[in-house]
């Protein structure tokens, strides 16, 4: 199929919130796995059209907190979330909220690239299809093409959309997963160590992509790489033992943090 030249027809969905407005806000969030208290009293404002990085030593609860934002923790039977997380001032833990609908609004990219064992096209088209975003086949083609373009993968795969997504390289697979998340036009994209399985070149591409995606999406990224946090994010949040230690502008965080633990962690003294 030939979809080149259709790019201009696709305009990114306009977002109401301007940059630096609060998109996600968490109030006194507690997370328990059974008896284990994994997240304690976390309060954070995540800004719209900003990349926020979560850093902290292993096991401190970065993934746990990230997964609270799209209620992926609901799938873990022992997991219990208390407190209040709201997106655009709507509490996502309100009993009236359907997590399935929420996840269309808050996309997720996982640590390990996990494309569906289907064609590249089907991988990206799946989300729009189940949400009924395309009325016609040509609409779907447009959405897929635009998502792949936003994910910077279009030029590499445009000639083989029918070949399996699992046949791509690791970095391409991860960008395919990003395209898959982008295709449903979410407002927030959560990324849990999206580059940890990638080589430096693929990592650079994904980082570049994150940089571009910031124009349209609110991005939260968990990373173990200080350099990556410094490169891609504007805000950084530091977790330690389930607590949010400090949240600040990335520049300040890496030059002159307020908290001693942040200083120690960034200097590599623990973690």
């Amino acid at each position: 199929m030939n979809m080149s030249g259709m790019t201009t027809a696709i305009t990114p969905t306009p977002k109401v919130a301007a940059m630096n407005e609060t998109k996600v806000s968490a109030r006194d969030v507690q997370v328990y796995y059974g008896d284990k208290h994994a997240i304690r009293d976390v309060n954070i404002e995540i800004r719209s059209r900003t990349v926020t990085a979560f850093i902290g030593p292993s096991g401190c609860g970065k993934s746990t907190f990230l997964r609270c934002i799209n209620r992926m923790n609901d799938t873990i039977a022992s997991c219990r979330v208390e407190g209040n997380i709201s997106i655009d001032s709507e509490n996502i833990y309100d009993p009236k909220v359907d997590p399935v609908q929420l996840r269309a609004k808050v996309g997720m990219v996982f640590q390990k690239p996990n494309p569906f064992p289907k064609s590249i096209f089907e991988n990206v088209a799946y989300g729009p299809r189940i949400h009924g975003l395309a009325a016609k086949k040509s609409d779907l083609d447009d959405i897929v093409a635009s998502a792949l373009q936003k994910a910077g993968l279009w030029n590499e795969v445009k000639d083989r959309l029918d070949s399996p997504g699992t046949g791509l390289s690791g970095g391409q697979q991860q960008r395919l997963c990003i395209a898959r998340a982008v295709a449903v036009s979410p407002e927030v994209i959560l990324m849990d160590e999206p580059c940890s399985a990638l080589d430096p070149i693929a990592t650079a591409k994904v980082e570049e992509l994150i940089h571009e995606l910031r124009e349209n999406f609110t991005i939260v990224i968990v990373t173990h790489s200080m350099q990556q946090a410094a490169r891609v994010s504007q805000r950084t949040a530091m977790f330690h033992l389930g607590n949010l230690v400090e949240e600040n502008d990335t520049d300040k965080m890496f030059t002159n943090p307020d908290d001693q633990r942040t200083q120690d962690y960034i200097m590599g003294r623990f973690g």
Partner: protein
Amino acid sequence: MTDVSVFGNVAKDIQTKSILEPDARTRRRNAAEARFRLWGAIAVALGVLALVGLLASIFSNGLSSFRQTYVTLDVFLDPAKLDKDGSRDPASIAKVSTFGYTPLIEKALAEAMAAKGISVDGMNAKAASELISKEAPASLRNHVIANPSEIGETVSFDLLASGRIDGYYKGRVTMESAALDRNTSPEQLQLAERLKEAGILTTRFNWDFFTAPDASDTRPEASGLGVAILGSAYMMLIVLVLSLPLGVAASIYLEEFAPQNRFTDLIEVNIANLAAVPSIVFGILGLAVFINFAGLPQSAPIVGGLVLTLMTLPTIIIATRAALKAVPPSIRDAALGVGASKMQSIFHHVLPLAMPGILTGTIIGLAQALGETAPLLLIGMVAFVREYPAGPPDGFFDPASALPVQVYNWTQRGDPAFVERASGAIIVLLVFLILMNLIAIILRRRFERRW
């Protein structure tokens, strides 16, 4: 300082050992491995030997049942005997019993022998005609009732030779054994030889073995697997249609939706146990529930199918749950992450990936059910059935037999010719099983090769 000296010692120790010469420990390890391999090879060899022995015995006994001896005769369908009032009315033709057809065959045989100049040699014509099966008049009668217009014509028939004559050409009956046998005589065998030379008696491929129904104790040559194959096919259909959807639905529910609590644990343990329950217990259950309580007919494929469904369900559920468990959780996360509901993530992504495992489990379950005998004996499928069951679905309620039961049945009969039949039936059963396994392999390949 101490650290350094420790490393120094270790280094010295290592230097003293040459890797060109294995030390005692390595030699012991290698010897143990060699012994283990030997035991493994012996075990495999024994298994192969047993299998080869089994197959050899079955094939040497049973292959001959795929060939059968026939006597080809031109029989004059005498209107004076078969249709006395000349009305060609099937009802009145049916009044003539098989005894009315015997003289026609005797006459045809005598004429054929006269034409080829073969003498009866020390037997009366009656004894000579006994080398034709007692089944022959019956099949002649069936043909005439089906084609009343042929009355008055001379029609060529392939009539079954008697079991002893057939056995003679398969090496089961010899001149010596015939001398001691009330059912045949050396003279009869010699006559058969002369008929064979004249081309009247021939041995050829036995299609009837697959299509004919069972026959009585005294007519092994006429017995076939027709009813048993139909019965087994009906039961497999019932088992497939009932147990696949039920089993898959139950597995999906248990694996993906059911809450983890005492109750589901109990169900889980029970399903695992059910798979190990002796099959005869299911037969008793079937007898009590389906026949005595629900009032379904005995010997019917519907009851057999239901009992075998109960037996197959645990196998399918266990296989399906294992297949569902084997699907990486990252696929579920991926689907949920783009906003698929749980149901969508299962039916769009998990189930297709689990399909090869599910299909393999189902076909293994079906193959088990196909070979199952004990429960069928209890629900009366061992009855002597000569009538073909009707087409489905009505035929599900007609009496029928089943392949393994037919094997069992034939091994219980007195005439040695049934040994051959039983082995032949085992071969047919094995071929079906191999076919099913092939289908399983092909389906698995097809589903796996998608990506």
